[in-house]
């Protein structure tokens, strides 16, 4: 390999056919005299622009639909040299860091290694990880790199961070999030999962249906079933958030509701039936009453609210239990309507903030699948700013990257990027501050299923492609198919 060109932080390296190099590989451009080396990553491989190649290809058969066949008598055996030159490649590489004295890393690319004297060699991922000190006391094995070495990251790199897992459908996003969840559980973390498709309920079971090590740490809460809330437990603000943001209660009606609520609280009559009665008898405009009634019935019909305190303690119990030895609270949002889903999430986030504020919880890792389906607009900023300070560390999982706001990408600390073929999707992801657009577009497009480009602090800003390791957990939430031999159940 020979150093050919450097423009900005892009280095072009000429590579010959006998040298293997693939997109995503790291190379070390060493200038022995300067006692420095550049760590560069291949982001694209092109044919070297060899003069005369076009002519060479044009005169090769087939020709004008006629058959031109022939024989070459090549006594000096020049042909292999022609092929060698023709097949030479140009590696487009991004400068990632500078190594000085073989040890210290700096992100600088302000120096220029010697073109004639520099030696270029592949930098094995384990060596890179060692140099970058991608290690720690809480290792998580994400999977294997292309060199079949293990990629081990530190769980603390997820602590206090905003993460995004994205990629097109069926590339392995949920699988990776399950891997991260189980790893966090292993280290005693509290995890809350907003499970849109009921995929995470089997985290406590092995693939063959047996209990695994996390069985007792997994708590599946299904709204209106084992996850309910009593009005008495609610703070007015939490309920107002539900009414205003999930049920879109207008301002005037909200003011009346506030009065009703205070009146009920003074009478210690915070029950659903009392609330219904109060709305019915309240002296107010008929339109306001109608508005309040429609929201009231939405709450009642959701089944999420109860007057029985005993039914409404499980969330807090689970969270407190998880605080001790780690645990995952899976909120199963599969079979509930959009409005109910929004009510549940409003309540849940309010509850988490309340518990974190009062230090009843230390911190929570929140995994949110397709959050745009239940998260209200104003929460996006809240999650990355205010809630993060309370200790809610969110991981967004989505196959529609444009549903996540640009400012979320800008503030994301870690991105786990699976394959995307749509340039618009990659354009969206490439807005992340911790990565350059060329790397995202070039590498992510060629990622095979279950391969993920890990970006951000977790890999010390050295993008690494990893094949996510298999996980022995029960697969749930599989897509129901028509063309299968599963018989239709007789429900009559």
């Amino acid at each position, binding site marked *: 390999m020979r150093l050919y060109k450097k423009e900005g932080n892009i280095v072009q390296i000429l590579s010959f056919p006998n040298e293997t190099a693939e997109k995503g590989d790291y190379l070390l451009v060493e200038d022995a005299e300067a006692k420095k080396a550049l760590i560069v990553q291949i982001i694209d491989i092109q044919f070297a622009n060899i*003069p005369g190649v076009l*002519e060479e290809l044009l*005169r090769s058969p087939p020709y004008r639909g*006629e*058959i031109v*066949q022939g024989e070459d*008598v090549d006594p*000096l055996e020049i042909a292999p040299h*022609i092929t060698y030159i023709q097949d030479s490649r140009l590696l487009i590489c991004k400068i990632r860091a500078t190594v000085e004295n073989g040890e210290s890393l700096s992100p600088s690319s302000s120096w220029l290694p010697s073109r004639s004297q520099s030696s270029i060699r592949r930098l094995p991922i384990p060596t890179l990880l060692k140099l970058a000190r991608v290690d720690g006391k809480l290792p998580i094995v994400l999977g294997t790199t292309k060199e079949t070495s293990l990629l081990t990251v530190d769980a603390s790199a997820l602590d206090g961070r905003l993460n995004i897992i994205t990629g097109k459908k069926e590339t392995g996003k949920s699988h990776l999030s399950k891997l991260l969840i189980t790893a966090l559980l292993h280290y005693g973390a509290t995890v809350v999962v907003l499970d849109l498709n009921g995929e995470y309920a089997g985290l406590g079971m092995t693939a063959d249906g047996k209990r695994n090590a996390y069985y007792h740490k997994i708590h599946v809460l299904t709204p209106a079933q084992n996850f309910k809330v009593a009005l008495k437990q609610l703070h007015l603000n939490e309920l107002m958030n539900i009414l205003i943001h999930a049920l879109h209660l207008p301002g005037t009606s909200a003011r009346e509701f506030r009065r009703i609520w205070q009146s009920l609280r003074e009478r210690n009559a915070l029950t659903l039936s009392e609330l219904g009665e109060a709305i019915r008898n309240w002296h107010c405009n008929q339109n306001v009453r109608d508005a309040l009634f429609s929201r009231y019935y939405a709450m009642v019909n959701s089944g999420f609210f109860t007057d029985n305190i005993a039914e409404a303690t499980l969330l807090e119990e689970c969270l407190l239990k998880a605080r001790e030895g780690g645990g995952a609270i899976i909120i199963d949002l599969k079979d509930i309507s959009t409005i109910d889903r929004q009510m549940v999430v409003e309540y849940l986030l309010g509850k988490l903030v309340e518990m974190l504020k009062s230090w009843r919880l230390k911190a929570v890792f929140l995994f949110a699948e397709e959050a745009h389906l239940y998260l209200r607009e104003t929460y996006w900023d809240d999650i990355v700013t205010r809630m993060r300070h309370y200790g809610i560390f969110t991981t967004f999982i989505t196959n529609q990257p444009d549903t996540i706001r640009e400012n979320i990408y800008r503030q994301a600390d870690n991105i786990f990027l699976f394959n995307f073929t749509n340039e618009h999707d990659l354009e969206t992801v490439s807005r992340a501050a911790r990565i350059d657009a060329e790397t995202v577009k070039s590498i992510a497009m060629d990622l095979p299923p279950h391969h993920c480009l890990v970006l951000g602090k977790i890999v010390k800003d050295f993008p690494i492609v990893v094949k996510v390791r298999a996980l022995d957990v029960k697969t749930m939430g599989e897509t129901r198919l028509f063309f299968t031999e599963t018989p239709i159940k007789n429900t009559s």
Partner: protein
Amino acid sequence: MDLTLPQRFIELSIHSLKHVQNQTLQLNQQTIQQANNNISQEPPYAVINNINGFFKPITLKPKTEETITAAVDTSSIKLGETSTGIITAIRGTCIWKRGKSYTYLRIGPFIFHITEENQKEVYRALQAAYFQEQSESQAQPNIMQTPMRMANLLEKWLQQTLIRTVSGGLILFDGSLTAGTPDTPTSQLKEILKSARASGNTVLAFSKMTTLRLNGYLITDMLSTQKPPCIIAIPEIKPKPPTVLLGEVYVAKLTRGNCAFRLDIDKEVPKEKQIEAVERLIGNDLITQSYPETLRLAHILCTFTANEVIAMRHFIQHRYRIKIIERLDMHRLLFGPFGKGESHSEAL
């Protein structure tokens, strides 16, 4: 087609390169590719003047009876300079069309290191190997002319071999049928034409460029208003001694458009057979811009591409440990942005 390898070419190539080991090779600013029989090689003719007679164009009717059309072309290229000489590459191509298929045999490249010391030896050894009956008076080329002369020798050898292999066909040469020039001795060309006739072949030589003028006008402009395919015979061309013309000279316009070429056909072939040969050519070969495809392919296949030049330099660099260095461009060095480079300097 059975063509034995020009063994002597290989031996001389390897032998010459052995003496260049561990030297430095200076690259040219521009590689110079030389195709044989180009305009600079056209021998001086007596100017055809004061002919007032009417030249009647001969209209051609394509004859489709199956005839093999075959062509030969060679090229040479200078790869660079060593401290003692130049390194050059030579390659030749034979191509023939039978039915709808073209088949080619490409020989080379042969790479030679030519120095003042070995150039006579190399050239003479090749001459002796392929054309035993050489006149001693034939001028020796200088070092810069040697690659083209050697390519010419290879071309003559390929022509001879092709003529002996094909029978009843049309043999297309690139250039004219002029002999008595330093690179084409009369006896040599006569021998080739004789062999062609003996095998029932007709030799047709197409010149891509000509300086031949009639009453001050280029002969290739004579057919500009004629409907193709047609040819017109140019009589009474008297070359300046010692050059001799072994062909009947025609101007051929074989397809629509503005292209017409000088066409030399073996003089010893009867007139009607000459015309019939052109008719068989247009009935059997693809003709584009009045030029036969077989000959065009022969040229395309033997020409060196820039990629091949790099590959050959890579070969000599690795096999013979030659260090390649870029020659300083004195014009650029001395005059900076005002120096246009060596390639321009000569024209200025």
